[in-house]
């Protein structure tokens, strides 16, 4: 073989090898990327994230099973927590549950910046304990917190199978080497039980720099020092390298034949054309393969995304064809109905999922819909039958499905399970009815009690007064008629009797009034407090004429309230102020008001005898007095009245004073009408 011929053949072969290396690297890259993307789509699923957060073994198992089902190259999946402690795996490997793998290269890799990571070749610690690489993706929840790690173990034998999809020249070898220079896979050397460095890894450094010519020649000790050509392509994703190796003798062998001397040109041409055909076909094949891989990838991505949307949905989504068979159902639908996707797909919706009594009717409506005779009701609530025979109420939204030519091909429904809501609504209705009843009963009781009280007061009012009048009358007659016959002492006794009688009369009146203020219906109106006050003032001023009381009266606002009851309040308060300033030369009574958080605060201030704050809490009690009747008359009901009336208006009462320094009495009234009297 001539040197030129050898060179030509060699160049062609090496070009061929480089293309092969490139193809192999693309295939490997694509494979790894596909797996990584699948894993990432899973680690982003909210349902799975939730299951991982709660370390729910059953729920996560479902997802892991799904991944393995859909990817023949994934054999083993494992989930660890953020710190690298394993808590579940599929297939199940109880021997490693609870073990911590933070010492492994894959953990160190992924925990560097929590991005997907492909490890270098490692020796597995479980099962076959053979060579593998780990593809890892982190679980990151909505708030950016790392809640776990998903680990996909790819055995090198599996990777080898992938690589073998690409046909290589006879006499060439394929090697894949990791970042550390260890062999991931080699068609030349079969080693699966130990990590072996690739002998020619150093060649890579020289080859990377030259972009075009990524082939090199080495002296291969295994070939007795003979030249061994290596063509290199990087596997970008994991940072690995593909080396396609060719024995130089193989080149020589292919060219060296005395027979072909004459037909050397033909052979060369033939070889050339064959080679270039093969090369182009390979490129086409590789291109097609790449395209297919890419197209598959797109479809898979879109399908996964669509599936994700369907599965994230909290409502059930069902599609029926024109015959009423189920063509699509989402995860929630399966959950609600209790069937697995396999069990229910293709079944007749009406026969399986509707209660018997409505089956025919609903089927009829459906058929009309499919025939185009009616339009679907936008929203309706229907019971469905679960696998277990339970009835659940679903709120459905329906849409007719049409094909490209606008023909009706089915129905798409989304449904929300409102069974619980309906139950709650029923509960509420029942409770409300019960409440109504109870209110009626209580009201009737109250009305009865009120009536009794009224009768009681009536009795008191009339029957207690009569004897009092008699006592008063006869005592008076005694004095009138037997004036001279009665000694002074006797007259004194009779006067005392008359006084007591008088007192009792006042007491009865006060008590009746007190009772009335509690029972009486409030006549709510929008009152001008100034008017109410004026009316009371007139009487008070008239009764206290000659006393020289100084009045300082502010302008009062409008308030909602009962006229006669509020008049009583002023009457009592002003009456008290007048009474307890009796000992003063210059009595001064002030009436004021100010606004505070939705209420009016009224006050009556006097400079009278005041009281001891120690007993302030007794002030507004019935019959409670802070002064003896020797000092000041009174029954002790007046302020109790005031408090009761103010309370009924939704206000408060209180007072402040100092002995001999006067007193201030406060009461509040809300600015807006209270709801109950």
């Amino acid at each position: 073989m001539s040197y030129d011929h050898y060179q030509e053949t060699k160049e062609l072969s090496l070009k061929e090898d480089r293309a092969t290396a490139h193809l192999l690297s693309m295939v490997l890259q694509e494979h790894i990327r596909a797996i990584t993307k699948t894993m990432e789509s899973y680690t982003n699923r909210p349902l799975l994230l939730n299951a991982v957060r709660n370390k729910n073994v059953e729920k996560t198992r479902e997802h892991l099973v799904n991944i393995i089902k859909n990817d023949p190259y994934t054999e083993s999946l494992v989930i660890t927590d953020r710190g690298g402690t394993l808590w579940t795996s599929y297939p199940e490997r109880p021997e490693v549950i609870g073990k911590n793998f933070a010492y492994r290269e894959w953990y160190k890799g992924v925990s560097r910046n929590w991005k997907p990571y492909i490890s270098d070749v490692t020796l597995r610690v479980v099962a076959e304990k053979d060579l593998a690489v780990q593809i890892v993706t982190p679980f990151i929840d909505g708030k950016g917190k790392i809640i776990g790690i998903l680990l996909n173990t790819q055995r090198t034998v599996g990777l080898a199978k992938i690589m073998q999809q690409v046909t290589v020249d006879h006499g060439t070898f394929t090697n894949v080497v990791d970042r550390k220079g260890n062999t991931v896979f080699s068609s030349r050397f079969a080693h699966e039980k130990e990590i072996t460095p690739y002998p020619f890894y150093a060649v890579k450094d020289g080859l990377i720099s030259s972009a075009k010519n990524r082939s090199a020649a080495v002296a291969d000790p295994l070939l007795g020092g003979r030249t061994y050509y290596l063509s290199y392509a990087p596997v970008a994703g994991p940072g690995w390298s593909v080396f396609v190796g060719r024995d130089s003798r193989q080149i020589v062998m292919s060219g060296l034949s005395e027979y072909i001397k004459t037909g050397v040109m033909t052979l060369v041409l033939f070889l050339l054309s064959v080679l270039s055909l093969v090369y182009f076909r390979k490129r086409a094949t590789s291109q097609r393969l790449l395209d297919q891989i890419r197209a598959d990838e797109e479809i898979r991505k879109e399908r996964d995304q669509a599936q994700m949307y369907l599965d994230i949905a909290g409502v059930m989504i069902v599609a029926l064809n024109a015959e009423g068979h189920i063509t699509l159902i989402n995860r929630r639908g399966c959950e609600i109905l209790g069937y697995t996707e396999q069990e229910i797909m293709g079944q007749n919706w009406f026969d399986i999922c509707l209660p018997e009594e409505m089956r025919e009717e609903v089927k009829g409506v459906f058929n009309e819909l499919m025939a185009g005779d009616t339009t679907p009701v936008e929203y309706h609530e229907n019971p469905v039958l679960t696998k277990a025979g339970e009835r659940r109420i679903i709120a459905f939204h329906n849409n007719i499905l049409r094909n490209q030519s606008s023909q009706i091909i089915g129905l798409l429904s989304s449904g929300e399970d409102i069974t619980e809501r309906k139950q709650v609504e029923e509960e509420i209705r029942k409770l409300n009815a019960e409440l109504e009843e109870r209110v009626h009963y209580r009201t009737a009781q109250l009305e009865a009690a009120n009536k009794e009280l009224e009768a009681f007061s009536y009795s008191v009012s009339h029957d207690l007064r009569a004897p009092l009048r008699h006592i008063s009358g006869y005592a008076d007659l005694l004095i009138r008629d037997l004036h001279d016959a009665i000694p002074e002492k006797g007259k004194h006794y009779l006067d005392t009797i008359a006084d007591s009688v008088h007192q009792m009369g006042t007491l009865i009146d006060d008590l009746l009034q007190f009772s009335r203020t509690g029972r009486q219906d409030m006549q709510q109106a929008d009152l001008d407090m100034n008017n109410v006050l004026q009316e009371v003032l007139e009487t008070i001023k008239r009764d206290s004429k000659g006393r020289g009381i100084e009045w300082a009266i502010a302008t009062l606002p409008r308030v909602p309230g009962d006229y006669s009851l509020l008049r009583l309040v002023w009457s009592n308060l002003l009456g008290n102020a007048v009474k307890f300033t009796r000992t003063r030369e210059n009595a001064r009574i002030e009436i004021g008001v100010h606004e505070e958080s939705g209420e009016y605060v009224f006050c009556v201030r006097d400079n009278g005898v005041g009281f001891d704050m120690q007993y302030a809490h007794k002030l507004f009690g019935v019959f409670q007095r802070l002064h003896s009747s020797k000092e000041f008359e009174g029954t002790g009901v007046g302020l109790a009245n005031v408090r009761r009336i103010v309370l009924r208006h939704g206000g408060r009462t209180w007072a402040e004073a100092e002995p001999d320094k006067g007193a201030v009495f406060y009461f509040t009234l809300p600015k807006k009408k209270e709801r109950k009297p």
Partner: protein
Amino acid sequence: MIDLRVILLVEDDPKDLELTLRALAENNLANRVTAVEDGVEAMDYLRYEGKYKLRKQGYPAVVLLDIKMPRMDGIEVLRAIRSDDKLKTIPVVILTSSREEPDLKRCYELGANAYVVKPVDFKEFIDAVKQVGGFWAVINELPPAPEE
């Protein structure tokens, strides 16, 4: 000569009767008073029935009517008077212990001319009687006598 106008006092309680008569006496109105014990007697008197068949002709200037009485109570007397054509114009003053609103309402609805609550204090009572008796039995113009 001024016709002595009669006051018909309808009162069942003897103590109240004595006190009221005394109050009227303090005002020099005692000699005009005819007292009956209950509602039935009051109607007999007004209708010239029973033991009053042969009483002197003429109607009282005012009826002082207590409410709480046995057999026929004050409200019923009032109703009877007001529904009798011959008697309906006679002035009726309710004189009672009770100040309860239902009684008040009822009496005015039935056409009482006045409603006076007997004060507990006797002196006040005397004063009230003076005003009431003085007005109705002296000052007030009587309605004309009904046709026979």
